[in-house]
């Protein structure tokens, strides 16, 4: 194990803002991309006239 304590881990040797700034923003961007994709797919499969999308999930009105 590289870290003496949890605080040490979050401090990242004084580079916490750079390291965590990289990871948080990157995962946030992936999340945004996925969110818009899922939302778009739901919208498109909803207008097909069925109450189910193509995954077979029921979409609430």
């Amino acid at each position, binding site marked *: *194990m*590289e*870290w003496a304590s949890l605080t040490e*881990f979050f401090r*990242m*040797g*004084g*580079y916490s*803002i*750079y*390291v965590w*700034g*990289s*990871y948080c*923003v*990157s995962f946030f*961007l*992936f999340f945004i*991309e*996925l969110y818009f*994709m*899922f939302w*778009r*797919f739901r919208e*498109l*499969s909803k207008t*097909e*006239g*069925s*109450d*189910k999308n*193509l*995954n077979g999930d029921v979409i609430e009105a």
Partner: protein
Amino acid sequence: MKKIVTEVIPLNFWKYSTPKTVFPIASKVIPMAFLFAVILCVAGIYVGFFVAPTDFQQGEVYRIIFIHVPSAWMSMFIYIIIVFWSLMGLIFNTRLSFMMAQSLAPTGAVMTVIALWTGALWGKPTWGTWWVWDARLTSELILLFLYIGYIVLGASIDDIRRSDRTSAILALIGAVNIPIIYFSVEWWSTLHQGASISLTAAPKMAASMFLGLCLMSLSFWMYTIGAAFYRLRIVILKREKSSTWLREFEGAP
């Protein structure tokens, strides 16, 4: 007397070039790809933060590498795949090829933004600056503009066939930027370091660092496959809304 019939079954590669056959395949691939992406990412972060040692020169800040390098690789790989599908579409006139290319572009743009962002956060503590107009950084920024241009151009032309072909040609022209990005660190003197990993030599880093990097790269590959197929379904839905196969696939309401 029994007649022996030797039947030759032609292998039809074109079968997999229509939206109808690919849509259900995509639906099966997507959950698997995302599942592997998550597993590999967790493993990669574990190795990257808890197994890989502190860098003797840079300290802990080097741990940005596990996200910076895979995203930078993917930003280039995805563009190469877009060029491949654009070329296929232009040569064989297969509409699915253009759809594949378009499905990849937003993920490529996201990867490029991540590479630039993490690069800036890595540059500040190590070079003392967020940004320099040097060859590697500038060509990567041009790649982002190419992705944006490709997406916007495709969306701005109403006629689908014209839109497909025009954006494909833009992708082909922009392909010249990829070797420039890759070799920029050799061709020009730049702040950015040269490649630490090459196909011909052993990686210039600790084995655990290299393992973390591999796991994160595979995770990003899986994410890209999942996202691209997911977006492919959106593109197919949008374009083939009126076709009968889609309604049959969905099942009558």
